[in-house]
């Protein structure tokens, strides 16, 4: 059915000359009775932001833990980190969301599976956690590289002063490592937001999902996706700008990128 709608849009645009542009469509009421079509898109945008931000928080927390584990001398920690990263980065995100959403409930004992399926907002939580774990593997690898790029003597100096391993990471290694990987982390944050569009496949009505429904109801495919595109661009422009400010704020005087 979905493919049919898409192809219909194509035929209308390409095949027939008479595609009826109607930019006023955004201010017409949507058939769900939740306001205008614009309201529909904006509600999708809000869900995209909620999913993206929650997924990013999860990615940062788990990515940091796993990234640190991969730099510890402990073999067990290193192995756990290795398995985590390879599991979450070697499978397509789409497959992972299907796994968590469709397969996991079937693998669990019946009652637990049923409980999981009936959770309110299941697509939202699945998407946030699934995308968060997927992105955490990427954050972990970058943090590992950031820590690895610090001189070996930094850890030694911290250790020689009597700082414990936890303190060395907290006060010496991580503040520098995160500064170093801030630019690539910006890209990962943007990727996280963009990846929320994949959640349309498990029924999350985020921005892309709402643009699709708008197209289905109104047949104004170009208007719907132009608006969605602009909204994505806008959100990511805000993120990029905010991260630039953050980079400048934490820059170290006299050091690489600092002034």
């Amino acid at each position, binding site marked *: 059915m979905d493919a049919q709608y898409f192809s219909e849009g194509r035929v209308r645009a390409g095949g027939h000359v008479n595609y009826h542009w109607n930019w006023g469509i955004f201010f017409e009421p949507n058939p769900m009775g939740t306001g205008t079509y614009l309201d529909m898109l904006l509600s999708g945008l809000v869900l995209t932001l909620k999913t993206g931000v929650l997924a990013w928080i999860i990615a940062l927390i788990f990515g940091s833990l796993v990234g640190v584990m991969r730099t510890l001398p402990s073999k067990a920690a290193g192995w756990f980190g290795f398995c985590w990263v390879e599991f979450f980065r070697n499978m397509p995100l789409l497959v992972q969301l299907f796994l968590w959403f469709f397969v996991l409930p079937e693998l669990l004992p019946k009652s637990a599976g049923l409980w999981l399926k009936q959770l309110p907002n299941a697509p939202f939580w699945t998407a946030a956690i699934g995308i968060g774990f997927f992105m955490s593997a990427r954050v972990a690898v970058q943090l590992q590289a950031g820590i690895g790029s610090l*001189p070996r*003597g*930094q850890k*030694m*100096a*911290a*250790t*020689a*002063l*009597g*700082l*414990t391993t936890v*303190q060395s990471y907290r*006060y*010496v290694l991580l*503040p*520098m490592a995160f*500064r170093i990987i801030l630019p690539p982390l910006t890209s990962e944050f943007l990727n996280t937001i963009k990846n929320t569009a994949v959640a349309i496949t498990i029924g999350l009505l985020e921005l892309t999902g709402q643009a699709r429904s708008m197209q289905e109801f109104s047949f104004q495919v170009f208007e719907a996706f132009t608006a969605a595109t602009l909204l994505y661009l806008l959100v990511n422009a805000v993120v990029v700008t905010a991260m630039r400010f953050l980079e400048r704020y934490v820059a*170290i*005087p*006299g*050091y690489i990128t*600092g002034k």
Partner: protein
Amino acid sequence: MIEISHVDKWYSPTFQVLTDCTTSVTKGEVVVVCGPSGSGKSTLIKCVNALEPFQKGDISVDGTKVNDPKTNLPKLRSRVGMVFQHFELFPHLKIIDNLCLAQQKVLGRSSDKAVAKGMALLDRVGLKEQAQKFPAQLSGGQQQRVAIARALAMDPIVMLFDEPTSALDPEMVSEVLDVMVDLAHEGMTMMVVTHEMGFARKVANRVIFMDRGEIVEDAPKEDFFGKPRSDRAQKFLSKILSH
């Protein structure tokens, strides 16, 4: 103060970096460790505060065995000051915060006390005006003086120096050595890995010469410079003192 007895360290059965090293440093003594590069002198000094593990033998500092699994290593290390070849100041912290971090987090000193102590030590190494700057804004010699002050802020019972002037431009070497000479004159117990034979002549009590992971010569300064017993030490001295 430091007892090193029969220490062996190897990375693999065929790659031994320390062989049967035995020596000691008594309270108030200044011991210079020298030798060609790759002779294990840096490794030996890093074994003293357990930055490097070793496979055989014993090292104890002020009666505490560093290779005993029950030893509280962070606590022991906090009493052993260490200065590195590449300074290893923490680049994201201001100079004064470099001096305060471990005082507060390890010794539990209050911020006021730590800052007061830090400023006094910066004054002593002539860098009070730089307190609010960041490490990258200082010259190499200044950074190394800060690193010494940072170690002293912990009130160490002994100071370890691992080639403290090797990464410095020649004109900055003396400002660092001056601080170290002062420290020696005040009676600080010091173990110093260095090629600065002038420093050794001036303040060392004993000189240890290492080659290929072994302590070849361990003699009072006068004997070492006057009549080194081993061929290898003689050759080494003739090379580094020839000009």
